[in-house]
Structure formats: C-alpha cells, structure tokens
C-alpha cells in the first residue's frame, strides 16, 4: 500500500512540475513583466535596476526554481490589475467555485448513477429509453446555452430564481459560504444544474454501459443460479463491479467540473475563480492566470490520487501485497 501511494505521489509531483513549467513560461515570456510593473515614464536604467532586483536576469533554472519555491508557499506575487497578492484574490474566490463545483458533482453523481442503473436494468422500458434520449440532448447542447435557457425560463419568465451572483453569504473564518442562507441556496440552483448536466448525462451513460456489461458476466449468471434475490444481485454484486471502472472516469470528470466552472461562472456572474480567470485573460494578468492554472492542476492531481487509492481499496485484485493463498488441485 505504502509503495503504491509513494509511486502515485511521485507521479503527481511530476505532473505539478510540468504544469509549473508552463505557468512559469507564461510568466516569463508572455510580454515583459517589467512593463506591467512600472509606468511609461520610467527610465531604461531604472527598469534595468528593477529587473536585476527581481532576479529577472538570473539563469532560467534559477528563476524556475524560485518560482516553484514561491508557488509551493502559495506566493504568486501581485496581480497586475488589482495590485494585491494573488493568493489573497484566489482565497477570496475559492469558496464560491468549490461550493458550486461540489454541488454540481454531487448532483451529477446522485442523479447520474441511479439513472444509469435504472436504464441498464429496464433497458427496454419506455422511461429508460426516454432518459437515454434526453441524455443525448444533454450531451449535445453546449453548457452556456443550457445556462441561458435556464435563466430565461426560471429567472426572467417565472422569476423563481436569481439570474446572477451568489446571494447572501456567511463568513466562517476566511471561508465564505452561500449554503447557509436561503438566497445563497436559491442562487446556487441554476449554476449547479447547468454545470452538472453534462457530467450527469455522461455518468449515466457510462454506468449504464458498464452495468450492462457486468450483467452479462458469468458470475452474475452464477449468482442467479445460486438463487440470490435480484435486489442483491443488481445492487450488490452488479453495482459494485460496475462502480470499480466507473470510479476512475468519474473522478476525472469531477476534476473537469472545477475547470468547466469557468463557463458557468461567466454566464451566471458567479464570483468564483473561473470568473477571476476570465478577467485575468482579458487584462493579461499573468500572475493570476499562472496561479489559476497551477491550482486547477493541483485539484486534478489530488482527485486522481484519491481515486487511485479508492480503486485500490475497492478492488482486491489490485492488492498484490496480500498474502497470496495459492493452493494446488
């Protein structure tokens, strides 16, 4: 187990170093950072002095190492636009994005998995076929369109839900949450649904395909021959075997929910990191962009690691270090 985790950790570190390199390259080579720090009237000599002081004349690897060391401490310098530490900006926006992403992920899983199981078990049922058709629509309509349609129907026509923002938030230390107020929860509904819809349909179709595959296996047939109840077979034997492969892909999907939040946040003016990132792109606010990239990569890596460990815990075949109880005959 330990060796397995260490190996995965090493891989994760490698990924982070690579993303760090990209973020650093962004920093260093998209425009001249000095231009973003000083005014038009600054003289060439002053610029050169500043360059020297900031270490911009040091060799590539020295700069890269310094960048990584700072990044590891959460220090991405100052935003060119806001003139505030990037870490502070991100920390302000992080709760909004994480709450939205987790709400969407939860929704996608809690609806997607049961629907996948249902459509697999009632393959020829009218309702199941209906779900499959709706899911095709869900996969093919772009996210922003779904968001706009929702806004039109529930925000503008019915006036049930707010069309933008996060509603009232409550501060818990440095974390701000919208989950504790009615207006915060109401504001969460449409963005979460919008963000979840694509993943939900994907998870549903994935679970369905995998479940159908499992239902055809010998051990399910043998379980039926043993006279087990269909409830036990479907929701015990079959579902467990279905979720093992589904887990990996679903884990990656959850990572991409956080990344895809950019679009949803833009549509709903959700004050999260995605919105911050879009603004940063518009203003070429490189430190913010770099920090965002590295944070998203970090989320992906962590989710991956958790999924791998879960996989390892769920599937006994991977636990190679168990004493192998081979017998003969």
């Amino acid at each position, binding site marked *: 187990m330990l060796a397995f985790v260490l190996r995965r950790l090493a891989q994760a570190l490698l990924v982070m170093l690579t993303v760090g390199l990209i973020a650093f390259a962004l920093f260093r080579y998209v425009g001249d950072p000095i231009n973003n720090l000083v005014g038009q009237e600054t003289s060439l000599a002053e610029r050169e002095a500043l360059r020297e002081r900031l270490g911009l004349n040091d060799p590539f690897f020295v700069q890269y190492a310094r960048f990584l060391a700072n990044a590891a401490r959460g220090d991405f310098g100052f935003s060119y636009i806001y003139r505030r530490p990037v870490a502070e900006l991100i920390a302000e926006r992080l709760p909004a994005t994480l709450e939205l992403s987790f709400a969407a992920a939860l929704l996608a899983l809690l609806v997607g998995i049961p629907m996948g199981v249902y459509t697999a078990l009632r393959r020829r049922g009218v309702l199941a076929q209906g779900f499959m058709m709706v899911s095709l629509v869900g996969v093919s309509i772009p996210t922003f369109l779904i968001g706009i349609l929702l806004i039109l129907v529930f925000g503008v026509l019915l006036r049930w839900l707010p069309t933008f923002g996060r509603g009232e938030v409550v501060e818990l230390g440095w974390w701000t949450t919208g989950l504790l107020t009615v207006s915060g929860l109401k504001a969460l509904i449409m963005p979460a649904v919008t963000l979840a819809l694509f993943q939900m349909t994907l998870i549903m179709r994935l679970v369905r395909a995998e479940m159908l595959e499992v239902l055809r*296996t*010998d051990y399910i047939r043998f379980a*039926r*021959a*043993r006279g087990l*109840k269909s409830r036990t077979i479907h929701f015990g034997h079959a579902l467990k075997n279905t979720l093992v492969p589904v887990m990996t892909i679903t884990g990656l999907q959850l990572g991409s929910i956080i990344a895809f939040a950019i679009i949803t946040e833009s549509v709903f003016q959700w004050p999260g990191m995605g919105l911050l990132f879009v603004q940063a792109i518009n203003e070429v606010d490189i430190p913010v962009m770099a920090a965002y990239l590295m944070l998203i990569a970090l989320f992906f890596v962590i989710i991956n690691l958790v999924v791998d460990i879960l996989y390892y815990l769920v599937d006994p075949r991977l636990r190679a270090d168990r004493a192998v*109880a081979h017998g003969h*005959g």
Partner: protein
Amino acid sequence: MTAVGAEPLLRVEDLRIVFASRRGELVAVDGVSFAIARGEVLGLVGESGAGKSVTGAAIIGLLDPPGRIAGGRILFEGARIDHLPEEELRRLRGRRIGAVFQDPLTALNPLYTIGRQLVETMRTHLDIGAAEARGRALRLLKEVGIPAAERRFDAYPHELSGGMRQRVVIALALAADPALVIADEPTTALDVSIQAQIIALLKRLCQERGTAVLLITHDMGVIAGAADRVAVMYAGRIVEIGPVAEVLLAPKHPYTVGLMGSIPPLGRKVERLMQIEGSMPRLHEIPPGCAFHPRCPHMRPRCREARPEPVTVGPGHHAACWLFAEEGPDGRA
C-alpha cells in the same frame, strides 16, 4: 421413457427450446424426454452445439432471451417448474437445484470473499444466523477439500487456483443441500491433471448426500467413471439413452457407435468425431427425417423422410433409429 422408480426426481417431457432470430425461430432442442431418479447421476453427452447446455439452463429457468421453452413439460418432485413465476424459480435455484458452471475462473464474484459468497447463498435459502452460516461454510469448504479453510474463507477468488475455485463453486452449488445438481462441463476449463479429482469429489459429495446430478460433458471418460445412466444428444434430440455399461459397451444408435469408436485418450474433448464423416448440422439446416442421416453408414430411404422415435432396445435402454423400429414411419414401434 421414465426408467427408474415410480416418481423420478426430475422428469423432462418432450422439451422444445427455440431461439428467435432474424431467420425465424431456430429449434435448439426438440422433443427431448428423460428422467432422473433421486441420487442418480445422468450423463448428457454430445458434440458441441447439440443442445446440452440449453437443456440444463431450461431446467433451472436460466435460458437467456431470445431463447425460450416452446413446448413440453419439466417436472421436479412431481410439480411443473417450466413457466414458474420468477420468484418461485429463484427459491428453487440454489435451494433445491444447484448448478456448477464450466469456468470457475469467471463464476465467482471477484469483489467478494469466497466466505461471503457461501454465507450469502446459505442465508438466502436457509433460516440461519450469520455465525451458524459461517460454521456451515467452513465445514463445507473442508468437505470439498480446501486446505486451511479458515484462512481461505476470507480469500478473494483471484487468490485461489482454478481447481480450488471449482471446489468453491461445488461448495456453493451444495450450500443449501439441493436434491439435484446440474453440472455443465464442470472440468472442461480445468487442467487435465485435476479433472479426475474434481469429478471424483462431485460424485462422492453427491453420493453422500443422495443428491442427483445431471452431468453435462464432452468427455466419455467422465461418463464412464461417474454416471449411472447416459443420454446421447445429437442436433437437439436424444438419440440414445440407457445404463452406462449398456450404452458404452453395446451402443445401438449408429451415432453412438461412431462416438464410442472415437473415444479419445482419457481426458480429451470429443470435438470432432474421427469415425463419422462430416459434422453436426447447424440449427437452420437440420435435415428432415433423422438429423443424422447424411452422416449415417446405415442410411435407408426412410431415414430421409420420417423422424424415428425412441424404441426400447434393452432394459432401460432406448434408441431413436429406424434400424430398431419394426414398423414403418406411420406406425409406432
């Protein structure tokens, strides 16, 4: 053709199994009748595709669509079990009729320990607590010859060898003490060196418990060693059935004669019959009359026109062949 006793444990009468397909209905099993007495081992042999497995599946109600029972009756302990509601069939499966599948590598759920699968089977059918089920499961594991059963109880299937896993499968089939076990090629997937052990184990355990067995196999050696009676299938029909000694030593049907002439060295499969020219017809091209006539060395005109019904050729020994019928196609022997 009930051979033994007043009321056999299982009686299959005129069973017909069809598969719906694009070319219409394919008849996989046609007019099959046999009976199994309590504690008896009936062997079922025949070439690949003869309809052995679908016959076994039909008995435990596990025919997968598009297959279905299109005619005939299956009686178990005197009551009809074809077309039973699914819930009643389920209570029968595992409880009264156990099953052993061909491939022990795929028959066990990879994510559950073998102990859990045993306990689960017992507690589904028997009114016992977890501790009692565990005790029973451990005793059963020892009985099927699994050393260090205590430790193996918590092992996952992939931690056991193929032979060990087939022993577990046998334990699972016997977990609720059924009256009949349907064993569909229980050793085909195993190493030749352990096939005999597994068959001997199955035979001994069933003998001790008085459990009857429908033993489906390609292997004449297995039949000779384990079965009391044997039924020979060809193209969805039983062509000969009788006591093992009679059928093996004095086969009557030309197909059985060819089959006996081609017994391979013990333990090898009968995939192709060296003594008989040609191969068994596929379902959509079964010829009229006797399905075997194109390959039969004794073929007469009558064989092409009408299907022979089984006739008695010895004590408890029947063969479906015009050679033994005294009357023509329109009379009964």
